[in-house]
């Protein structure tokens, strides 16, 4: 074999090897070991079927006599939906060397449901784990004597608390909404059952994560419930339980933890609601009652706990947790037609945001506590102007951080509750954070997140398992 033949053989061999390598390279899939992550790998169940519940079936009276008082805190965020008490009762601005005057304490099932107060009676929704029942408890405000309970059997499990809504009270009625969306209407004084509505069954609504957080609304003799599911919102006659109108929900927007806020703008009264899917305004009266006046799907987050803050000039502020942040929108009206324009929408570290509590609007400014993902300002009480919620007017500073607890204003003082049951008194200001005093009210307190209620100088607050009444009168 001469050298030419050897070169030929080697050349052919190299050519064949190159060709084989080329085809192997073409066909090789570098991602062949990758695993496709698809939904369903967790073997999620089909969800629980709505339980057969006989709403209002259970009642027990324990006492009849109580001291009638003059003031009320009739619902979530109080009489005017602003979380500001207009009572002339003078309250302490510090605890001095004394311990807080705790009038009574009651143990409740794990939850975050706040109280409503009506002329000396306190109403609070509870879940009794032993009895497996949703229970509305009625206490005497002054001494904590339990007057009566009304409820119904329901099987639920702990899920970061169970009850988390506040009843709505009028002279005649009590309206509650339980963890699994059971609406119960009672006579206020006697606790007699009037009517019930199983929202999840009737409207095929999806119960929100960690159970219902929407506080029901009584407005002009109507129960207003944002149902999600087959209807977005419904109005029910308080006296008869008859449905007055239903808002269609073709987009399938879901119920959130946010509550419905009445708002009058451009001569129309409407109900503003932040559903999972959109922020909407629904006509409250007139021929088009129940129809959507305006909507924006720009505000679409999987968990919304805070309620819309409706400012008189047409601005609406929204915030939510779990990375959602905040949004400022402006409503305009033209010949009875409404449109909403988004002014700004931002991440939680970029401006005022809140995970659970609805910010306060006071003296032309918004106040709120930033969430844990709020960047360097996390957990600080902050003040912004609604023209630009991304610019801090002031923050409480890194030495004054709070949790997910409530804050409100009464007698010109701001009361703030920390997760561990520490109550702060601050002077509301648009210039700086002014702390006046603080005191630990609930020993070993945890998850003290329920909104406050106050009447006649008696403050009702709670942590996950204890409700406390404090006398704040001077």
């Amino acid at each position, binding site marked *: 074999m001469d050298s030419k033949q050897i070169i030929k053989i080697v050349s052919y061999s190299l050519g064949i090897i190159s060709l084989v390598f080329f085809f192997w390279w073409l066909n090789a899939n570098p991602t062949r070991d990758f*695993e*496709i*992550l*698809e*939904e*369903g*790998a*967790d*073997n*999620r*169940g089909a*969800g*629980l079927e709505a339980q057969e519940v006989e709403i209002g079936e259970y009642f027990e009276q324990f006492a009849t006599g109580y001291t009638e008082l003059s003031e009320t805190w009739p619902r979530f965020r109080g009489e005017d939906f602003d979380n500001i008490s207009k009572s002339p009762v003078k309250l302490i601005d510090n605890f001095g060397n004394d311990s807080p005057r705790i009038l009574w304490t009651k143990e409740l099932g794990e939850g975050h449901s706040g109280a409503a107060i009506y002329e000396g009676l306190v109403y609070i929704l509870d879940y009794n784990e032993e009895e497996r029942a949703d229970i509305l408890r009625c206490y005497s405000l002054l001494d904590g004597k339990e007057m009566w309970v009304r409820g119904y059997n329901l099987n639920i*499990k702990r*899920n*970061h608390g169970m009850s988390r809504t506040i009843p709505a009270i009028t002279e005649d009625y009590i309206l509650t909404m339980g963890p699994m969306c059971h609406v119960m209407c009672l006579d206020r004084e006697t606790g007699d059952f009037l009517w019930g509505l199983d929202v999840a069954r009737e409207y095929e609504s999806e119960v929100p*994560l*960690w159970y219902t957080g929407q506080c029901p609304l009584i407005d002009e003799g109507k129960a207003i419930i944002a149902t999600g599911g087959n209807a977005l919102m419904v109005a029910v006659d308080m006296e008869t339980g008859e449905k007055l109108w239903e808002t269609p929900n073709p987009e399938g927007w879901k119920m959130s933890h946010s509550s419905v806020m009445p708002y009058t703008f451009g001569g129309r009264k409407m109900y503003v609601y932040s559903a999972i899917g959109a922020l909407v305004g629904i006509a409250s009266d007139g021929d088009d009652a129940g129809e959507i006046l305006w909507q924006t799907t720009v505000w679409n*987050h*999987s*968990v919304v706990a805070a309620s819309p803050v409706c400012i008189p000039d047409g601005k609406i502020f929204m915030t939510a*947790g*779990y*990375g*959602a942040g905040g949004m400022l929108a402006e409503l305009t009206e033209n010949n009875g037609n409404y449109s909403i324009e988004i002014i700004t929408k931002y991440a939680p570290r970029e401006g005022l945001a809140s*995970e659970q509590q609805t910010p306060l609007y006071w003296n032309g400014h918004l106040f709120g506590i930033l*969430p*844990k*993902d709020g960047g360097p300002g996390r957990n600080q009480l902050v003040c912004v102007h609604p023209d630009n919620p991304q610019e801090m007017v002031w923050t409480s500073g890194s030495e004054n951080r709070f949790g997910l607890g409530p804050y409100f204003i009464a007698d010109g003082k701001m009361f703030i509750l920390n997760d561990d049951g520490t109550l702060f008194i601050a002077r509301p200001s648009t210039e700086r954070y002014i702390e006046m005093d603080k005191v630990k009210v609930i020993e070993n307190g945890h998850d003290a997140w329920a909104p406050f209620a106050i009447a006649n100088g008696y403050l009702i607050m709670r942590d996950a398992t204890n409700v406390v009444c404090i006398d704040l009168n001077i």
Partner: protein
Amino acid sequence: MENNSKSKNRREFIQSGVRLSLALALGGVGGLALSKVIEDDWVWQIDPFECTQCGRCATDCVMSPSAVKCVHAYDLCGYCDLCGGYLKPDANALSTAAENQLCPTAAIERKFIEEPYFEYHIIEDLCIGCAKCVKGCTSFGNGSLHLQIIHDICLNCNECSIARVCPSDAIKRVPASEAYKVKGDFTNNPES
């Protein structure tokens, strides 16, 4: 007789000296061995309450992937459907689909237990210690997911390269007998 006695004494003296030396040597070796046994070594560990989830544990460890891994304190976990450590903030859906998962290496396994509970399990081999899940869990949950240095991976460098860059000084030397600072009372991490 006197010479004989002197000679005997000398022998006895040498014998006693040898015995004493042997006893001292044995005692010394035994003492040294005992001190080795009872002496506590020092290892590096993260204080989960100081950790700010900056992400440097994933990038600055001499090991690749990092010796820092996420561990899960099951007794602190809320077993939530919407888990801030598993799902991206504002995820499209509460599902296991890749686009919803926060972990860049899919190192967290999600299992449905019963309504409404889900369990989350860390696949240690996939975890790179980036702390994204820890940040999510701390921000939105109970903080049951947290970082720990895993000692069968850690080289226990004299100068830990992540301790040098940790912005919150969360990495400290701890006695080897208490090598882990695990949150809660229970974890399924076998090393703890």
